[in-house]
C-alpha cells in the first residue's frame, strides 16, 4: 500500500482519474442528431442545461479537489485551524445564485415545453393512431383506412411525410407502454383508458428506430418499431399503394 502512505499522491491520482473521466465524458454526452422540429428545440435546451451543468460540475468538483489537496494536515499543524462557524453573507450568496440559475433554466424550458407540447388539431396534416399492446404496436391512418400491425417476426413501420405536421393519438390496450423514438428526443406513455395526443414535424429523411420505453412485462424489449420519413410525393404514392380495397379495410403486410 504505497499509495496509502502518500495521501497527496493518492489525491492527485483521484484528481487525474476524475479529469480523465470528465474529458472522456464530454465527447460522448451530446444528444443524437435531432430528426424533428421539436427535437431541435429539445437539443438546444439540453445543450444549454449541459453547459451550465458542466460549469457547475467543474467548479464544485474543482473546489472539492482543491480543498482536499490544499488543506491537508501538515506535521507543523499543531494548533487548531480557525474555528469558522459560518458566514451569513456568503451563505446568502450561494443560496441565491443557484436559485437564480434554476429559475432561469425553468423559464427557458417552459418556452420550449409550450412549443414542443403545442397541438392544434387544425394544423395537423397527417393523423395517425398508435396503439401499444403486449408486445407490439398498431399504427393506423384512419383517414386512409390503413392499419399496420407489428409482429414478433417483423417490426411495424410508421411512414410519415417530411415537413408535415403529424398528429399522433396514443393509447395503451392492456398495460402502460412508452412510445419512444430516441432521434426525436421524445417519448409519451401509452396508457389504457387515456388517449394522449401529440404532434411532431419530421425534418429529416430516413428511418428512425423506436421502442417501448415503459416496462410492460415479459417481452418488453421486443416492442421495437421504426418511423420512416419520406418525401410528401413518396408518401402519397405509399398511401395509394396501400389503400384499402373497395370492399373495406385492408390489413397491411408489415415492414414495407
Amino acid at each position: 500500500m504505497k499509495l496509502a502512505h502518500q495521501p497527496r499522491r493518492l489525491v492527485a491520482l483521484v484528481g487525474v482519474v476524475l479529469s480523465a473521466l470528465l474529458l472522456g465524458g464530454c465527447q460522448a454526452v451530446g444528444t443524437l442528431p435531432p430528426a424533428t422540429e421539436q427535437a431541435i428545440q429539445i437539443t438546444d435546451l439540453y445543450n444549454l442545461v449541459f453547459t451550465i451543468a458542466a460549469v457547475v460540475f467543474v467548479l464544485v468538483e474543482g473546489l472539492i479537489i482543491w480543498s482536499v489537496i490544499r488543506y491537508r494536515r501538515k506535521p507543523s499543524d499543531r494548533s487548531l485551524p480557525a474555528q469558522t462557524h459560518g458566514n451569513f453573507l456568503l451563505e446568502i450568496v450561494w443560496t441565491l445564485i443557484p436559485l437564480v440559475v434554476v429559475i432561469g433554466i425553468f423559464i427557458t424550458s417552459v418556452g420550449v415545453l409550450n412549443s414542443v407540447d403545442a397541438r392544434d388539431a387544425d394544423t395537423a396534416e397527417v393523423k395517425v393512431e398508435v396503439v401499444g399492446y403486449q408486445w407490439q404496436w398498431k399504427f393506423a391512418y384512419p383517414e386512409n383506412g390503413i392499419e399496420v400491425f407489428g409482429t414478433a417476426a417483423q417490426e411495424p413501420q410508421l411512414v410519415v411525410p417530411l415537413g408535415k405536421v403529424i398528429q399522433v393519438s396514443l393509447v395503451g390496450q392492456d398495460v402502460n407502454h412508452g412510445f419512444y423514438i430516441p432521434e426525436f428526443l421524445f417519448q409519451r406513455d401509452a396508457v389504457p383508458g387515456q388517449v394522449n395526443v401529440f404532434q411532431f414535424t419530421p425534418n429529416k429523411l430516413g428511418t428512425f428506430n423506436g421502442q417501448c420505453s415503459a416496462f410492460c412485462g415479459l417481452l418488453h424489449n421486443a416492442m421495437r418499431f421504426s418511423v420512416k420519413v419520406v418525401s410528401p410525393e413518396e408518401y402519397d404514392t405509399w398511401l395509394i399503394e396501400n389503400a384499402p380495397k373497395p370492399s373495406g379495410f385492408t390489413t397491411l403486410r408489415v415492414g414495407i
Partner: protein
Amino acid sequence: MATTAIRPTIRQRTTLYEWLTTTDHKKIGILYTISSFTFLAIGGLLALGVRTELAQPGLQFLDESTYNQLFTMHASVMIFWVIIPFLAGLGNYIVPLQIGAADMAFPRINALSFWMIPFSGLVVISGFLLGGAADAGWTAYPPLSSIKYSPGPGMNLWIVALILIGTSSILGAVNFLVTIFRMRAPGMTLFRMPIMVWTIIVTSVLVLMGTPVLTSALMMLFIDRNFGGSFFDPATGGSAILWQNIFWFYSHPAVYIMVLPGMGAISEIIPVFSRKPLFGYKAFVFATAGIGALGFSVWAHHMFTTGSVFLPFFSVMTFFIAVPTGVKMFNWIATMWRGQITFKTPMLFAVGFLSMFLIGGINGVFSAPVPVDYALHATYWVVAHIHYVLFGGSFLAIMAGFYFWFPKMSGKMLDEGLGKLHFVLVMIGLNLTFLPMHMLGLLGMPRRIADYSPTAGWNDLNIAATIGGFTVGISLLPLLWNIYISLRNGKDAGNDPWEGSTLEWATSSPPPAWNFDRLPAITSERPLFDARHGRSGKDHA
C-alpha cells in the same frame, strides 16, 4: 471432558438467546447492520445477474422472465432491505448516544421494528422458490401489476412484504422522534444536537407522512388483485395513473429518506477530520428541513411523460429542491476550507460521497426541464442518475459512517490499508458502471430491457458497465475481510479514536448497556471538542 464440552454450548446458546431477545438499541443497531449486509449480498448478486445478461446483446444467461424478476427484486431489496435499514441501524446505534440517552424511548417496539425486516425480506425473496418473484418492476405500475398481467404469487408476496417493512419504518420513526424530543441530556437544546440527529428527525417525519400513503396504495393494489377491486383498473372505472401519483407521493420522498441520514453522517465526519466545526450549522438544518418539505411537492416529475401531470408546477418545484442540496454541498466544502484534513478511511468515503453525489445531483437536474425529460425519461440516463444518488450518495455515506462508527460499535479499529483498497476499488467500479449509462441513455437505450439489438451501438458501453459492476462486487471483499480480521485482532479503539466532537465518543467502545457513566457539560453542538480544547468561542451563528 463432558463439562468442558457442555459449558461453551450453554454460553453460546445464552449469547444467541440474548441477541434474539435484546432490546438494547446498540445490539439492535448491530443486528440492523448484519441484516443489511446480508441483503446487500443478495441484492448485489441480483444486480450482477442483470449486468451479466446485459454484457452482450442476445439472451445468453437468463430468459426474459427471470431477468424481469432479477431487476425488480434488485431494486426492491436494495431500497427497502439495504439502504433504508442500514441508515435506520446507524441511527439506532448512534442517535441515543449522540443525545446522551440510555436507550431508545420504546425498546421493545425497537426490537419489533428490527425483526420485521428479516422476516419481510424472507417473504419477498421466497417468491423465487414459490413460482416466481415479483417481476413488474419495483414501481409495480398497474395494470401490469394487476392479477391479470402478473398472476404469479410473487406480486402478492411483494405487496405483503412492503406493507410489513413500511410498518417497521413507521414504528422506527415514532421511536426516533419520541427519543429525540423527550430524552436529550440536560443542556442539549435542539440547536446543540449533532446534525446526524437533525437528519434523523426530518427523515422520521418524511416516513410518518409518506409511508402510510404507500401502505394505502399497496392495500388498494392487494384488494384489486385478490378481491376484485377496481382502484387501478381502467377497464372497470379505475385509474392506472392514480397508482403512480400515490406511489411517487411516497417514493420520491423515499429518496430523501435514503439520503438525508447519509448526509447527516457526512456532516459528522467531515468536521472531525478537518478539525473544524460544520460550516453553517443552522443553514444546514434549514436546508434539511427544506428538502423534507419540498420533497412532497415534486413527485410527479416521475410522470412527466404520462400526459396527465400539471407540468410547470412539478418542474419548478424540482428545480427548487436542487437549491438546498447545493447549499449543503457548499457547507461541506467550506468546512474543509482552511481546515487540517486527515484522510482516514471514513474521510475518504466522505469525500467520495461529495464528488459522486455531486454528479447525482447535477444529472438529476436534467429531468427538471420537462422537454429534456421527454428525451431522457425511462432511459439508462435515469438509471445512471439514481445510482449516483443511491450508490454514489447513500451507499458511500453508509460506508463512511460504517468506517467511522465501527470502532465505537466493536471497540476495534479497522485496518486502514484494506479500507483504502475498498475505497479505490469501489470508486473505479462505480464510475465504470454508471458513467457509461449516461451515454447509453442519450443513445436511446431504455431501462428494464433484457436484450438489445447488436446494431444499436450499445455494446461497448454495456461491457464497460458490466466490468464495473463486477469491480463493485469485488470491492466488498476487502471490507468483509477487514471486518473479520479486525474483530479477531484489531487494535483497541479506546473511547475516542478520531478526536470526535459528539457525545458517543465520551463513553467506552463499545459502550456499556446503560451508555454513559457520566456526561460532559453540553454547551454547544461539540461537547467533546469543548472538553478537549475549552470553549472555542460562541455558539454557531
